[in-house]
């Protein structure tokens, strides 16, 4: 009897073991490893709607080069503007129309030539359908001839070249609702295969008008943190994203790659007294806000929370061309306490400061699903004790976070390759006398930012952004803490040239220059 059971169980399990043992070698990749690379990116990096620039491929939370398509402009390593398809551009005196000349030697991978018509079609379609690209300032786009296109704007928008860096050009003839699945572009790579929910395989475009990619085949798999780590441990990928908490536990044959970012974390400090719905009686005190700005030890925070993998942040746009370097402040606890003493914040018996009837007490909130921001909230609360400020911290859902931030301090994450972010944070919201995310208003700074948008050149607009920033820095309606470095496990021997500063979000930025990667012998 027993023999029978045994046989039955064995019959059942045998195939599993046979398969396990038999196909060990099938794991290995069959392509030539000399010019191929396998990269693990987060599952969230997979574009659900496909590789369609109209629906946000390349844009959005995490701006990156679309690879499969060409853009008119590109952002350089220092985030200034360079040319991709464009050869020249000029803005009219009233700032309302942009003329852009484009190359005449560019072909889509299906053999058709890319003309100004395709550019006009792309922008008009993006304007009509787009999800994450903001093209409300664009009226319409027209092609003058094959190599010249004119953008007609509703209002002057000096940073238009940054918007042009986000939109991959699609062919008018081949564009339809299924484009995202079968993209035809003129970029450095073409899409060979997309196994939805798993991986994409890209192949070098040998007819590319620029430098032909060195890396001929790029395979990107989408995995969560733990799976990407397992993939590294199992030696199955060449590069995998990771987070600081894994960084001390490397795998044989891999090293840690640290990418500088503008992926910042910061706190809003409501700048008006509590009026029943908005504002905060503690943070509405200017001296207290200034004291927090210089009284927080950013380096200690980075060591404690980010395991050292970060850079101190002093603005929402550190190291961007529109960043004002005067934003950098030195950590000075004594000066911070002196500021508070002078402003009339007296220490009580329990060490907590008080000014008239107001107790120096804050509640720092953070999105409950974000462990990093939770750790930052805890660290800040801890450090604020040194200033005599009592702080508690509390996790909240995103449904209430925005509304709560109108009166509480929230741990935010920003970092975009456009000054519009700074504009939306500090500038008063349309039809409102306060900024949208945290109550604050500075009329002179607003005027400077409006002027920056209507400036006659990018260089001039950078100066105006910086001037606006200088004014904001006197008010400290936000305090910026750290830029989180993006970390990757990189197989030894994989050569990755220096990268432009990554924006918020761990994603495709790392492959912006994958065409220039190589394997050392």
């Amino acid at each position, binding site marked *: 009897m027993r023999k029978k059971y045994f046989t039955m169980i064995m019959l059942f399990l045998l195939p599993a073991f046979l398969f396990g043992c038999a196909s060990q070698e099938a794991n290995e990749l069959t392509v030539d490893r000399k010019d191929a690379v396998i990269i693990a990116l987060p599952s969230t990096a997979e574009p659900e709607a496909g590789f369609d620039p109209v629906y946000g491929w390349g844009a959005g939370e995490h701006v990156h080069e679309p690879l499969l398509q060409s853009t008119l402009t590109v952002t350089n390593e220092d985030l200034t503007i360079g040319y991709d398809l464009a050869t020249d551009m000029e803005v009219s005196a009233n700032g309302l129309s942009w003329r852009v000349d484009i190359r005449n030697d560019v072909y889509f991978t299906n053999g058709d030539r890319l003309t100004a018509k395709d550019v006009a079609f792309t922008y008009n379609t993006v304007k009509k359908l787009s999800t994450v690209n903001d093209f409300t300032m664009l009226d319409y786009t027209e092609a003058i001839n094959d190599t010249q296109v004119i953008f007609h704007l509703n209002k002057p928008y000096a940073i238009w070249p940054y918007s042009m860096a986000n939109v991959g050009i699609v062919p008018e003839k081949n564009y339809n609702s299924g484009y995202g*699945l079968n993209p035809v572009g003129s970029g450095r790579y073409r899409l060979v295969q997309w196994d939805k929910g798993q991986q994409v395989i890209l192949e070098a475009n040998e007819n590319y008008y620029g430098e032909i990619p060195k890396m001929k085949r790029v*395979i990107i798999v989408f995995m969560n943190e733990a*799976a990407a780590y397992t993939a590294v441990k199992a030696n199955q990928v060449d590069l995998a994203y990771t987070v600081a908490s894994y960084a001390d536990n490397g795998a044989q044959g891999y090293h840690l790659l640290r990418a500088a970012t503008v992926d910042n974390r910061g706190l809003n400090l409501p700048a008006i007294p509590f009026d029943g719905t908005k504002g905060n009686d503690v943070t509405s005190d200017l001296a207290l806000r200034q004291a927090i700005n210089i009284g927080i030890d950013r380096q200690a925070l980075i060591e404690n929370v980010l395991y050292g993998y970060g850079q101190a942040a002093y603005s929402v746009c550190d190291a961007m061309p529109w960043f004002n370097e005067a934003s950098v402040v030195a950590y000075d606890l004594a000066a911070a306490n002196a500021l508070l003493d002078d402003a009339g914040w007296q220490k009580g018996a329990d060490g907590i400061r008080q000014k008239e009837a107001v107790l120096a007490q804050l509640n720092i909130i953070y999105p409950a699903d974000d462990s990093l921001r939770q750790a930052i909230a805890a660290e800040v609360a801890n450090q604020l004790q040194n200033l005599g400020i009592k702080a508690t911290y509390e996790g909240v859902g995103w449904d209430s976070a925005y509304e709560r931030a109108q009166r509480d301090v929230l741990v*935010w994450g920003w970092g975009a390759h456009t000054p519009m972010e700074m504009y939306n944070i500090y500038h008063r919201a349309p039809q409102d006398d306060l900024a949208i995310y945290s109550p604050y208003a500075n009329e002179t700074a607003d005027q400077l930012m409006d002027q920056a948008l209507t400036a006659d050149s990018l260089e001039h607009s950078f100066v105006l952004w910086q001037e606006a920033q200088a004014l904001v820095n006197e008010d400290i309606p936000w305090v910026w803490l750290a830029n989180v470095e993006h970390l990757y496990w990189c197989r030894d021997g994989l050569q990755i040239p220096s990268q432009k500063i990554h924006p918020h979000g761990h994603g495709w930025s790392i492959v912006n220059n994958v065409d220039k990667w190589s394997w050392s012998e």
Partner: protein
Amino acid sequence: MSNILKLTLYQLGRLVSLLFFVSLATFALVSFSPVDPLQANLGQSTLGALSAEQIERLKIYWGVGIPFWERYFAWIGGFLQGDLGISLLYRREVSIVLQEKLANSLWLMTAAWVISGFLGILLGIIAGSKEHSLLGRLINCCGLIMTSVPTFWLALLLLVIFALWLGWLPIGLSVPIGLESTAVTWADRLRHGILPILTLSLTGISSIAFHTREKMIAVMNSDYVLFAKARGDSLWRIIRRHGLRNILLPTVTLQFAAISEIFGGSVLIEQVFSYPGLGQAAVKAGLGGDVPLLLGITMISAILVFSGNMIANILYGCLDPRMRHQWQKAGRQ
């Protein structure tokens, strides 16, 4: 003939009303859920770079602020005409997305369901008929461990052992990394399915084994088994003649009800093994506020679970002549 027709109509009516209420409940839950689709899909920093005008446009796309009833009627109107709508996230027809995901998930779940059912019943019978033997205790003990182990933890454990240490099996995905689909063989797919199937079936085995064991013990302690033993029947003969017949009904009920558990388990498993199935899609649709896709997945799972129970109902008649007679009698009246 009219009997079968009546039964079919009755079941069909039940299915329709079930689908109606499930869809209504899902819609209501989604409407009350605190998930803000804009925040969830675009992220806080994207929203920061958008103008208020663009945010308004996006709110309309994601259906933010449109009354619950209006959205529901629009959806059900399409559903009745066989149109599941267009997924807001994937921007393709929900039916196509569902097909893709089902193709990945269905064989996984079916295999796990069959294996867990087969092994569960087998082990339950052994453990029940030899309650006090070493083997019986061992099965009992393993079953208890399996019930207490969280599914995702077991998945991680198997992953570490078979994929990382032994290197026998792939670390995830449903196809080999970097291989073009024309070169992918069924053996590749099978290999990639082994760990998810193994995890899913292991966690499913214990409940079915325990119930079978319980019933088997009751049978073994009955007078008729005592009589059979006294008559000198062998254990196998007792199991076949008395055991199997008695345990079959509850076991069939349980096994078909387990479809919903397998479905739920696959959500966790697919996360661990980066497996692109229905479970992952359900999570994405739910967290991303993709109402049409979520509704589509909910409907599919409701139909699957309902069919499971219905098949169990029909099987009762085949397995148990007493029930068959009862139904026939009821039909005649």
